């Protein structure tokens, strides 16, 4: 039950995209159509769900003082975390290419983009600062990924529709996407006061 709380909290109340504004580069660049946004969103859920537990293991058993080296190696955290993320993305890319070419064709170009999506690294760093245990970090990873997925689908749907509106020329495209995201962020802020334990 507590894991479900962490999942809902990560997905809605602490939404990585709309409450912390992480992963904005790919969020703005790939949200022109719902179809591509869907592919990127799925890939983000996948990679967050895999890297979060691995980074948890690395942080707890290698880097912290209670780990196998018995010294505080936390200054290596950035390098190891980003190495794990980059190699996992590469690995996932190869596995998907081998076993499901159709999924690879729809995800293909987005997978390398995910390495530099700050939602992934940010998620891992948040996990460390919140001191989650192993199963909680899995729930946090999946919830965070799901929240990001929802956010990018929502903005892509709005951007598809807004093409038919009379937006001032200088504001078209990027400028409007910023204003829309700001408004969506305001809407998501109203969820902040909710206690997930109440459900």
């Amino acid at each position, binding site marked *: 039950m507590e894991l479900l709380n962490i999942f809902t909290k990560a997905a809605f109340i602490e939404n990585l995209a709309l*409450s*912390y*504004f*992480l*992963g*904005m*580069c790919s969020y*703005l*660049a790939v949200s*022109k159509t719902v179809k591509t946004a869907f592919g990127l969103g799925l890939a983000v859920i996948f990679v967050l769900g895999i890297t979060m537990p691995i980074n948890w293991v690395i942080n707890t058993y290698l880097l912290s003082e209670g780990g196998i080296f018995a010294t505080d190696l936390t*200054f*290596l*955290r*950035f*390098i190891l975390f*980003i*190495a794990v993320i*980059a*190699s996992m993305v*590469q690995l996932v890319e190869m596995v998907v290419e081998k076993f499901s070419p159709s999924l690879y064709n729809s995800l293909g170009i987005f997978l*390398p983009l995910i*390495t*530099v*999506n*700050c939602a*992934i*690294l*940010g998620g891992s*760093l*948040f996990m460390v*600062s919140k001191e989650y245990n192993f199963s909680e970090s899995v729930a946090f990873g999946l919830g965070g990924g799901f929240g990001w997925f929802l956010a990018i689908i929502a903005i892509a749907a709005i951007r598809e529709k807004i093409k038919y509106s009379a937006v*001032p*020329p*200088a*504001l*078209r*495209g*990027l*400028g*409007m*996407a*910023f*204003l829309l*995201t*700001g*408004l969506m*962020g*305001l809407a998501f*802020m109203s969820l902040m006061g909710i206690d997930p334990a109440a459900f």
Partner: protein
Amino acid sequence: MADVKVAEKSGITFGKKERKLLTDPLSDNNPITVQVLGICSALAVTTGMKNAAVMAVAVVFVAVLSNFFTSLLRNSIPKQVRMIVQLVIIATLVTIVELTLKAVDFESYKQLSVFIGLIITNCIIMGRLEAFALANKPYESILDGIGNGVGYGIILLIVAFFREFFGKGEIFGFKIIGPTNEFLLDTTTSTWMGWYASNNLMVLFPSAMFVIGILIWVHRAWKPHLVDIS
């Protein structure tokens, strides 16, 4: 101007092409408003001008040095593992920045927290390495790093100015408009525009989106050739 002096000293030419590398990212090819790179940190650290300035300096440092080192190594990096090599270079530089900031200014370090680490995934750095440093000589790469770092920093400071000025009535932590604490105790002295009540919305995340959105609007209205059709 300081950049020009550096170029003269090192004896490397500084012609039209080099100047273009430096000045292009300031407006026509700005990292944030035109290339749309590095938005995450632009939103998170712009609640105050001091944080924005620290972040801008950190990004210029990482951008210049990572461009330089990647450019030096550009002919010996195999194409398949270039992402990981680039990320290791960036992550090392960011760790240096983090530890330095922790030692020099612990207050800013605490406020910036996760976002210093997120310079690693700041798409400006990675994007410039991919688009420029992998194909150009070290000297040009350094200029490109300075240009993009400064172009990013300028936008950061503009956004931070609006957010801090209207959100807290302060600039760099100094009270400019609105009632001060002394004013509340002693009603005979008042600051300039003492009636102004701080608009807390400006300190929250969504307002950064609005400020950048409006900035892009103004920028594109001023330079219509930047407007994209999609």
